[in-house]
């Protein structure tokens, strides 16, 4: 009898050993929150940038600027934008999922966010264009110095992860709480490992989009502002009152959008970089926790602290 109790105790303790510690929970929670907030900000920001682009182009058109009337949204077309919104939503679902894993009993939220993450990642991979993947490849090489090898998105792998997550919180797991926590830790590791590369791919594309020096959406937005600026510069020689009024309206719109673009682009780009670093560190850490030392968790905490600060700046 004593021997049996001893064995059961050992099993329970070993399960507990595999569960997540308080400091790890804190790190995962903060990384999750950062990812969720960033994803939400980006998905809200993109339609605003599109609206600005159309407004600026309409004024340029009124002033006979170099704008194609059938392409007022420029690169912010529905196809491009939808792929980005799926990407940003995937970041937000990933964040919510991480948070749900380390907070109390969030079984239903875990299942819901796992479904959402799977749906958004799958949609993103369907909607992203070849040009998008070329941009991802360029950004990856630029940041890591290594060539980017694009793996075909295998729906089955992610579907299987999602299906296994849907099995979390069964009666047995709920009755044996220690086993439930053990399973959550296992699932967390599975999620982070399965989605790490996909989350990074999304971050590379969005970094390119929000960088002033690349070929993404912000660069296109800058071009639209230049066209507007060039159109309103004619005010010097404008004689019609109506045209002068439009030019003045364009001038104020330009000032407003310039400030907006500068404040959003750099901070989002830097924050995405921070998210990649923190996510990679977390994946490494979860992959080999026994071999990890205190320096790993310290590094992760620092990365997440930087990330949280960047998020606070963007959220203002």
């Amino acid at each position, binding site marked *: 009898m004593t021997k049996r109790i001893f064995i059961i105790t050992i099993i329970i303790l070993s399960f507990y050993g595999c569960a997540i510690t308080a400091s790890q929970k804190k790190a995962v929670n903060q990384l999750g929150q950062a990812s969720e907030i960033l994803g939400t900000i980006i998905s809200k920001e993109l339609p605003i940038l599109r609206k600005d682009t159309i407004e600026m182009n309409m004024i340029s058109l009124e002033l006979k600027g*170099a704008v194609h009337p059938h392409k007022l949204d*420029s*690169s912010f077309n529905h196809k491009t934008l939808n792929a980005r919104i799926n990407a940003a939503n995937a970041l937000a679902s990933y964040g919510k999922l991480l948070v749900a894993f380390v907070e109390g009993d969030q079984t239903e939220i875990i299942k819901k966010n796992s479904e959402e993450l799977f749906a958004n990642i799958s949609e993103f991979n369907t909607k992203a264009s070849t040009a998008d993947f070329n941009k991802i490849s360029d950004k990856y090489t630029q940041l890591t110095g290594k060539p980017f090898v694009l793996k075909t998105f295998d729906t089955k792998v992610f579907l299987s992860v999602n299906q296994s997550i849907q099995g979390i919180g069964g009666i047995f797991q709920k009755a044996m709480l220690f086993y439930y926590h053990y399973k959550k830790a296992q699932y967390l590791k599975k999620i982070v490992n399965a989605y790490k590369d996909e989350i990074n791919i999304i971050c590379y594309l969005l970094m390119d989009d929000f960088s002033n020096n690349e070929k993404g959406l912000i660069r*296109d937005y800058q071009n639209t502002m*230049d*066209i507007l600026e*060039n159109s309103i510069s004619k005010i010097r020689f404008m004689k019609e009152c109506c045209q002068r009024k439009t030019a003045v309206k364009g001038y104020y719109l330009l000032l407003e959008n310039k400030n907006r673009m500068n404040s959003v682009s750099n901070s989002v780009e830097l924050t995405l970089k921070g998210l990649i670093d923190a996510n990679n560190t977390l994946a490494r850490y979860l992959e080999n926790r026994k071999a990890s030392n205190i320096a790993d968790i310290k590094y992760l905490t620092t990365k997440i602290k930087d990330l949280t600060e960047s998020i606070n700046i963007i959220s203002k």
Partner: protein
Amino acid sequence: MMIDQLDKTYEQLKILRDNANTEDAFEKIRSQMDKINEQRRIIIEKAIDGATEEYRNATNALEEARPMIESAIEDLSKIEDTIEKVAAVISQVENLLV
């Protein structure tokens, strides 16, 4: 890279445009800036092979035109020659992007 050269040329032309003392010169420069804008957009949207001789020549031509624009900003009597030079460079880039 060509896009960097186009950006620099564009910024210089903006100064020259604002300094232009006749409507005709002003309009010509404005139109050249629109063309450069279009070229920048094409470069952003398409994958242009940066390893060709034509690409290198057009990039160099853009770089070489800049001191002339700089000089016209200082001395507006050179504006017409500069406009002609820039027009030639823009055509060279245009041929590459077609």
